[in-house]
Structures are given as structure tokens and as C-alpha cells.
């Protein structure tokens, strides 16, 4: 009855203190790893190394898996709630009939309870029965 959508993305920067780059970078040929004494003398500082570090973030969203986007009774979006509710989702669920037409539970109950005889589906006029 729900349709879930999961979003995952990678990325982010992390700061590593283990290794460093020299600044300002000395114009010396070859590999040279100055000691802390030499760095102080030459005015070189060790800057933290910025590394690209993969990590993942995820958010999930949901929508009701109904044929239509709006409730045929109140005309409000299925992903929203009926006009008498404040929060969509479990507080204002959708309900399917045996004919596969969906409505906000609160809306179809108002219709069924307002009928003196057997209520029919507002969309197809078949006898309304809740899908078992």
C-alpha cells in the first residue's frame, strides 16, 4: 500500500591530521621530509590534509500506491490528508474498496455512514465493500 523511495548519495570532505602538506611549499628538488626543527627554521608550516572521503547519506520518502493522485470525495491529494486531519500517513490512511477505488478512510466512512441503504462506490457505483 505504501511506495517507498530511498535516496542515497556519496560524498563529503574529511580532515585528516595524520599527514600534511607543507606551506609555503619549498622549491627543493626530490623528496624531502623536513624535521620539525628544519620546518621551524625555514618558516614552514604543516597544514592538515583535506581528503575526499566517501560516506553515504540516506533519506526515504513514501507515497500512497493509489491509481489517482487525489481523493474522489474531498479532492485533496492522497499524499496529504483529508480536510478534517492535520497529518498525512497513519493518522489519515487510505482505504481500498473491493472495486479497487481508493479514498481517504475518513472520507469514505462519512459517505458510507450517510447512506440509509447499502452505499455504493462514488467512482463506479458498485456496492461498496472494503477490500479484505
Amino acid at each position, binding site marked *: 500500500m505504501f511506495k517507498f523511495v530511498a535516496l542515497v548519495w556519496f560524498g563529503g570532505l574529511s580532515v585528516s591530521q595524520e599527514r600534511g602538506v607543507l606551506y609555503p611549499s619549498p622549491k627543493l628538488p626530490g623528496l624531502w621530509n623536513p624535521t620539525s626543527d628544519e620546518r621551524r627554521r625555514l618558516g614552514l608550516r604543516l597544514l592538515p590534509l583535506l581528503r575526499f572521503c566517501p560516506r553515504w547519506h540516506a533519506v526515504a520518502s513514501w507515497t500512497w500506491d493509489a491509481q489517482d493522485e487525489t481523493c474522489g470525495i*474531498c479532492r485533496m491529494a492522497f499524499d496529504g490528508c483529508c*480536510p478534517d486531519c492535520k497529518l498525512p500517513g497513519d493518522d489519515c490512511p487510505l482505504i481500498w474498496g473491493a472495486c479497487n477505488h481508493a479514498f481517504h478512510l475518513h472520507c469514505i466512512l462519512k*459517505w458510507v455512514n*450517510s447512506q440509509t441503504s447499502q452505499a455504493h462506490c462514488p*467512482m463506479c457505483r458498485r456496492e461498496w465493500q472494503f477490500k479484505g
Partner: protein
Amino acid sequence: MTSSSAASRKALSKIACNRLQKELVEWQVNPPAGFKHKVTDNLQRWVIEVNGASGTLYANETYQLQVDFPEHYPMEAPQVIFIPPAPLHPHIYSNGHICLDILYDSWSPAMTASSICISILSMLSSSTVKQRPADNDRYVKNCRNGRSPKETRWWFHDDKV
């Protein structure tokens, strides 16, 4: 003048108010052909101008529909009548009451003011004769105290017009 039943004069419920606002916006964006909503500040009573479709008995004629929405719309049907003079039609009484099942027993909350208008225009367009219902005088006399057509026990027998 025509009156509405006591129930339909009660203020609209939240769901009714919400739906009517949506219907009005939808009407403004996509009005049914041949109809014009007369702008008022009253959401509960719509006055709609109907133009007879060309090529039918009612071509070039203009009538006015009055639609009164009850407190519990759309669980309850609106009251729809023609403001006299009503078109001459075998299912329309001279007091403006319309014998059409979807306005009474066959109402469904999935229907809208716009879909009712289309049904009424279709009923006019398929008419082959301009005449009043056979029991017009008796019915209109019975309604003299301003009774709503929703209180009538209608008998629907003709599915041709």
C-alpha cells in the same frame, strides 16, 4: 423567489468549504463549455448561466441555474433548480425543479457542480419536444410553500431524455 431547505442554509462544513474552493478554482481554469459562473462572494450558492447548445431545441436561449450546497456537501447532493423562467422540457417543471436522478437518489460524492452542469445540458440537448411534464400544474401547486425539490419523492422512469 425560490427558497432552499433549512438544512442547506446551515454554514458549510470544513470538508464542504474546502472542496467548493477547489471546484471553483477548477471551474475558473477549465469551465464546462456553455456555462458561465456568475461571480458572487457566496460560496454556498452558485448562480450559473446556461447557454443552449447550437443545433438543439434550446440554441440561442439562456437560462440560469441556482445551485445551493448543503452543509455536508459532497456527502449530500446540492439543490439544483432553474431560476424561472425555466426551459420548456418534459423533465423541467415551470417552478424550475428538475427531475434528474443524479440530483437525488443517484448522487455520488465524486460528482461536481461542473459534472452536474454537463448532465443538465445533455438532458436539454437530447430533448425532442419543448413541453412541460404531464403533471406540471399539480406538482407546482404542491410546491407552493417553497418546498425544495430534494423533498420530492421522485419517480425516474424515462431514460431517453
